[in-house]
């Protein structure tokens, strides 16, 4: 199958861990052809060399969502337009943009439920109207930047049913919003929607790796060609927009309008997607909240590579009572609470030690926080020596991966009796999954996706509760048998749910399922419509694959199939079979 992979601000340019799943996915599914359509969000991403991709993956298009859009990314404009054509185009733009603006500014609470549906409809009408306009005429970015757009938006904001927050929108706010909308709607004007192998028209399935801007080309492909759309979200894009807008110096009307746009876009994406795969329950809850149909939600956990951790030995029975914390050091991780809890553990288990392993996080306060934690550790725990003649050591050590003590991540987990996680705020706890791969017992705080990941295979305590954390750790340190049992259960759970293989297998199944549900697409095979009725399974997925899909090994043909050639399959076989039958019939 030909899969169009739609990405925004990440794969294949960024190399962070959060985008690694795309790489693992395309490398795992070698039977399909992938065409990557990338939207970049920062100049830095396009600056480097295009990354190396496997043979069945190619980078079809790249377009920027920042700065000015150059003509190279736009759909080539048709013949030179006359003045009347330009005026007609402007009138169409005004009509569709007014729909969009009304949908964005309309007050959600102003009417009964019927009005809500109307709102979503108007957004869709405006969005697809603009898409059609951009497809037939081009020139949408210039129109979105024009004075007309500002005027239409102003009229919508002053309308009788507009949100109270946008009533006070000033001219500057309107300008900011139209500029942001121009960037957000850029995918409408791109030259991606062709029937060529590189275009989205030639794809069997669009797989958007996030909501928001990346899903927009998928929505248009769905509309223009009927291509099914699969949306995968490991972090909910709408939520990220809310957090980014709250941090940016924007006025309330701007935030209200942009939030309305992203919310409506998310709702439209979830409504049109054939299947949505959230990465965890948290994302799933947000998607349901935004109107996703629970029947089309299917949680697919982000796979992690278990191979490096397979070699880690089980914890020794005479373990020296080492607690290990692994992660990026940030205030959200509440290491101070951990140190207080450790002080309490030490009162019961004087031999316990704590290793804090990790570098500074992205938070700007991280370096200061690290120093603060070190100072607190030095205050709480004096250096200790075994006897009068050796140099003492602090029971709490701060180390980084790659140092002499912990050359690799696996060594960090191997040295642990219990892995502790003390976060107050957490997304998907990677270190917890890694510890589960290593078969270590864990104690973690109830934050983010921790409960969902750990299931019943570790201890969970409330966040910001050092006493509970200490009690749980002490219980595990004092009971090696329980540690082993919990560790084994955790490893089994992690290997079942969080490996790369399960992720790839899930997507392989989803791809085939979606393509089998897609009726014969007019773009792919016009003959599929016999009498206006689409025929399911008319063009199976395999028909799109060049050659190697399900190819039988050469030189080996089963014996029962050998004689089934066109020359000897007909009459002789029937005659040969018929003769004994009749003979037997006569005989009886």
């Amino acid at each position: 199958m030909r899969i169009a992979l739609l990405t925004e601000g990440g794969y294949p340019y960024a190399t962070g861990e959060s985008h690694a799943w795309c790489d693992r996915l395309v490398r795992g599914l070698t039977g399909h052809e992938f065409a990557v359509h990338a939207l970049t969000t920062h100049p830095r991403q396009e600056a480097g060399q295009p990354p190396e991709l496997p043979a069945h993956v190619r980078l079809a298009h790249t377009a920027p969502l920042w700065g000015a859009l150059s003509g190279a990314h736009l759909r080539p404009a048709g013949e030179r337009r006359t003045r009347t054509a330009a005026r007609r185009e402007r009138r169409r733009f005004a009509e569709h943009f007014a729909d969009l603006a009304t949908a964005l500014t309309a007050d959600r609470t102003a009417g009964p439920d019927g009005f809500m549906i109307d709102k979503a409809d108007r957004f869709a009408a405006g969005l697809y109207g603009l898409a059609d306009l951009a497809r037939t005429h081009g020139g949408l970015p210039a129109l979105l930047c024009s004075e007309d757009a500002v005027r239409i938006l102003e009229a919508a904001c002053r309308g009788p049913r507009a949100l109270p927050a946008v009533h006070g929108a000033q001219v500057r706010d309107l300008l900011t919003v139209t500029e942001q909308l121009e960037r957000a709607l850029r995918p409408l004007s791109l030259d991606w929607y062709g029937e060529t192998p590189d275009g989205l028209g030639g794809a069997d399935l669009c797989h958007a790796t996030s909501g928001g801007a990346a899903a927009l080309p998928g929505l248009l492909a769905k509309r223009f060609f009927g291509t099914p759309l699969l949306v995968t979200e490991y972090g909910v894009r709408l939520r990220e927009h809310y957090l980014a807008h709250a941090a940016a110096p924007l006025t309330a009307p701007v935030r209200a309008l942009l939030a309305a746009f992203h919310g409506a876009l998310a709702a439209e994406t979830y409504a049109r997607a054939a299947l949505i795969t959230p990465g965890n329950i948290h994302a799933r809850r947000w998607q349901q909240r935004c109107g996703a149909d629970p029947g089309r939600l299917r949680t697919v956990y982000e796979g992690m590579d278990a191979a490096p951790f397979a070699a880690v030995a089980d914890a020794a029975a005479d373990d020296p009572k080492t607690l290990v914390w692994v992660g990026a050091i940030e205030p959200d991780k509440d290491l101070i609470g951990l140190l207080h809890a450790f002080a309490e553990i030490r009162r019961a288990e004087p031999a316990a030690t704590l290793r804090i392993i990790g570098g500074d996080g992205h938070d700007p306060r991280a370096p200061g926080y690290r120093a603060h934690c070190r100072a607190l550790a030095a205050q709480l725990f004096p250096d200790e020596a075994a006897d009068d003649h050796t140099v003492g050591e602090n029971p709490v050590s701060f180390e980084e991966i790659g140092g002499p003590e912990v050359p690799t991540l696996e060594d960090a987990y191997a040295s642990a009796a219990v892995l502790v996680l003390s976060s107050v705020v957490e997304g998907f706890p990677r270190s917890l999954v890694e510890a589960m791969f290593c078969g270590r017992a864990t104690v973690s705080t109830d934050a983010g996706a921790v409960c969902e990941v750990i299931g019943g295979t570790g201890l969970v305590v409330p966040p910001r509760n050092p006493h509970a954390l200490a009690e749980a750790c002490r219980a595990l340190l004092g009971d090696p048998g329980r540690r082993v049992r919990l560790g084994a259960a955790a490893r089994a759970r992690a290997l079942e749910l969080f490996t790369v293989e399960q992720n790839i297998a899930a997507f392989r199944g989803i791809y085939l399922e979606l393509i089998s549900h897609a009726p014969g697409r007019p773009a792919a095979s016009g003959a599929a419509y016999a009498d206006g009725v689409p025929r399911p399974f008319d063009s199976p997925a395999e028909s799109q694959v060049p050659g190697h899909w399900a190819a039988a090994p050469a030189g080996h043909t089963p014996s029962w199939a050998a004689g089934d050639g066109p020359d000897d399959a007909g009459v002789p076989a029937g005659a040969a079979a018929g003769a004994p039958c009749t003979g037997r019939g006569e005989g009886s």
Partner: protein
Amino acid sequence: MTAPTRKETAARPVRRGPADPVRALMHRHQELCAHAVDPLEIAAGLEAHGVTDRTAARFRHRDVFSLAEELYARVPRAEPEPGAAPAPESVPRSRGVRAALQLLPGAVCAAAVAALAAVEPVPPGASAVLPIALPASLVRPAVGIAGVVLVALALRLAVRTGPLRARTGGLPVPWVCWIVGHAVYGDWLLAELLSGGPDLPPHPRAAAATAVGLALAVAPAAWCARWFAVRGRRGLAASRGLAELAARVRPLLLAATALFLAALVAVLIGAGAMLGGMGEVDLTAAAVLGVLLFLARLLAVHGFPGAAAAGLATAAALEALAPALVLIARLPGLAPAGAPVELLIRHAGAAAVPALACAAPALGLLAYGLRALTGARAHSPALSAEPEADQP
């Protein structure tokens, strides 16, 4: 799973809170809730602060979303600050240097005219003064060409650094050259053509006062453009609606044009007094031309280079029409074609042609500017954000 309760837990003094637990949460997240535009924004913010569904259960809510809805409903929205601090003006680092650059074209042009005047008499031994022994007949053209090139360079420098810098696209250079060239040499050309010329080899007679006056007017033009841009941005920041913005900017544009016209006339009168040879019609023609160029540049600076180019092209075409008509009139049987031009020139002087040719497009540009430059797009802060190379 749960830690066993210790004995001292019971003894610990229980913190007495209000009966309504959400109130404490409201107080803690007051700013987040008051500035939120949407319950979902509060939900996202709460989650970023570590509130989970389990926490929400403590507040008797099913999940964070319903807790956020209660907070959104209960916390009054913050009043938008009345005059949000306007974006800090980008003050150029070396304003003195930039101001001096705006004066450069005028200074270079005056120097060039002075140099030309110095070589004018062509005394018999003059060529010996120059380092290279040029034939006396070539000294004047050489000085003239050098002057033109230097003035063009100074003009380019001035226009690319100051408030006259256009981000989206400059003015078409050929039209500008033709119009300015016509202002300086047009009188001579028309006079030659009408008297049956041109004679070969040509001895062009330049309108030196016009050239110096126009070059000196670059500085007031830059000042007026900057005044208009700054006041326009201020108006944009202060206005609530597009109509209010237009009402604010319209007088600004008229005032800027009038200010520039006054400064231009003053400079031209000064140049005429110094160099002589400037009649009333010449003055009018030069002033109208200056206003046309100013308006065209203003439109280009604020993002309408297309309209500016159209205005200049119209003026250039009208100016080219006059000599063309005179030449056409020489063809047999087409003599009446040149009559209007001859009539005009006989009654009002040769400078009336450029005056009329520039006045119509200048009025057109002013009318267009009153519509286009009063919109929000013309004063968008994004327009002055990214510097790009352009043309003068």
